[in-house]
């Protein structure tokens, strides 16, 4: 029994790394044999070198040297502000429209219509409205993150077991306490899904916003590197966004678990 469990544990630890490893080996293979030329896909070692310069080198020693901390920080700030706006609007509105039919029918058509517009088409308008820079990026992030947060909060509030609401009512729970002590925890698994999806898409729209010519940020670095044809830097930027995005997701889950019993115990 124990042996079987142990084996399962080990398999579980190894399994997620197999595919990335195979791909890296494959990458080495195609670039060392020059099946794919270096100006399309640089050698992995070169990527590591570029990354270490970008992250650790003394700023000013080369175009991208040592800029990572600053870029990551401003990008994270933009994502945070946009995501926060989306959450502050999307959560209460979503929960309300999940519980109150009138609110739902008031917003639903409008929001679903709005949702059908591809996020990228907001870019020209946003640039006219907010100019090039931080505000456009924040607007795009908030816009994109709003929909998954709103829709999942609404779904969570709608599907909550009506007997739990009844149980709350018969124990004398009023509107206010009912909202945060029954409704919110009851909808928590859905809310969490919405927030995670929203945060994920925030990073996508961050890059879109930063492609428009802001001087700093992880997206700006990628666009900048494209202009001067530094493929290795583009790939480094992509990998770092993946890592920072994953870390921010973990951070979000951790924060929710610390703050809410329901997030800790139901997901």
């Amino acid at each position, binding site marked *: 029994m124990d042996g079987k469990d142990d084996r399962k544990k080990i398999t579980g630890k190894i399994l997620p790394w197999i595919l990335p490893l195979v791909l890296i080996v494959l990458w080495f293979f195609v670039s060392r044999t020059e099946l794919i030329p270096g100006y399309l896909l640089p050698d992995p070692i070169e990527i590591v070198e570029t990354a270490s310069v970008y992250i650790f080198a003394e700023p000013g020693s080369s175009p991208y040297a040592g800029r990572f901390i600053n870029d990551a920080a401003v990008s994270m700030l933009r994502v945070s502000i946009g995501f926060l706006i989306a959450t502050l609007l999307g959560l209460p509105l979503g929960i309300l429209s999940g519980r109150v039919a009138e609110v739902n029918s008031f917003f639903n058509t409008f929001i679903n219509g709005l949702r059908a517009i591809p996020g990228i088409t907001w870019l020209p308008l946003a640039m006219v409205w907010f100019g090039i820079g931080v505000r456009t990026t924040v607007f795009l992030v908030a816009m994109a993150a709003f929909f998954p947060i709103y829709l999942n909060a609404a779904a969570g509030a709608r599907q909550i077991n009506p007997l*739990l609401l009844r*149980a709350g009512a018969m*124990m*004398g*729970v009023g509107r206010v306490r009912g909202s945060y002590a*029954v409704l919110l925890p*009851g909808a928590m698994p859905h809310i969490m899904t919405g927030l995670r999806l929203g945060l994920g898409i925030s990073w996508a729209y961050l890059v879109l916003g930063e492609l428009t010519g802001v001087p700093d940020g992880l997206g700006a670095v990628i666009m900048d590197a494209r202009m001067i044809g530094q493929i290795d830097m583009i790939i480094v930027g992509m990998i770092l966004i993946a890592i920072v995005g994953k870390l921010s997701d973990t951070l979000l889950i951790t924060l929710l678990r610390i703050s809410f019993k329901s997030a800790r*115990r*139901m997901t």
Partner: protein
Amino acid sequence: MTALQERTELYQRQASPVPALEATDVTMRFKVNGVLKTVLDRISFATFRNEFTCIVGQSGCGKTTLLNILAGFLPPSEGKVTVMGKAICRPGPDRCVVFQEDTLFPWLTVRENIAFGLKGKERGSTDHLKEEVNRFLDLVGLTDYQNYLPREISSGMKQRVELARVLILRPHIILMDEPFASLDYRTRREMQNLLVSLWQELPQTILFVTHDVDEAIVLGDKIEIMDINPGRVHEELHIPLERPRHINQSGFSSYRDKLHRFLCD
């Protein structure tokens, strides 16, 4: 006159002669496929303070609908429900419900579930709250399980938690909707005994809905027998048997026969 009839009489003559709960001509009609159907037809009965009343009827006679009306979840089409003389219009902690299904909050532990209602009701000291919760955990025998989540305990234990979280609020009346129906035979018997001993320890008005004739006789001071189609109170039967009761007790089978006769007619 038996001891129990005496006691019932006594309740009725007590300082407050007002029934703990009274239903007067409660009628409920639903539209089913466009046809108006009378589900409950002029239900009238009263239950007095600290009385244990059972409502027995076949499935589909409207027992659950009646209970929902008494709890305030549904407004009746006609008629009136009063609790301690006051008409009710919405659910409230004076009429607590123990549901058939699992309605514990899955994100709260056993202890937190039991404390939930009291937390909202009392602004008093946390020490007092703690003591009360400890007491009720002990009463339902779940002290060792207080930090478990509902999904980690058995359905019998869940029903104990449901019971405790309602008893702790000391409502005017506890409404129970076939709470033990989904339990196995032995657990059901255990829960019935527990319920009766709790009721004897903490005097409490209970209205218990069931389709199980034996259960009704084991538990009730009196039984309201319901007809089906439309649901109406057919007869009120007093059960003056000694407690604790058992199905092999003398006199038990005569009540059972009587009830079966009513329900099969």
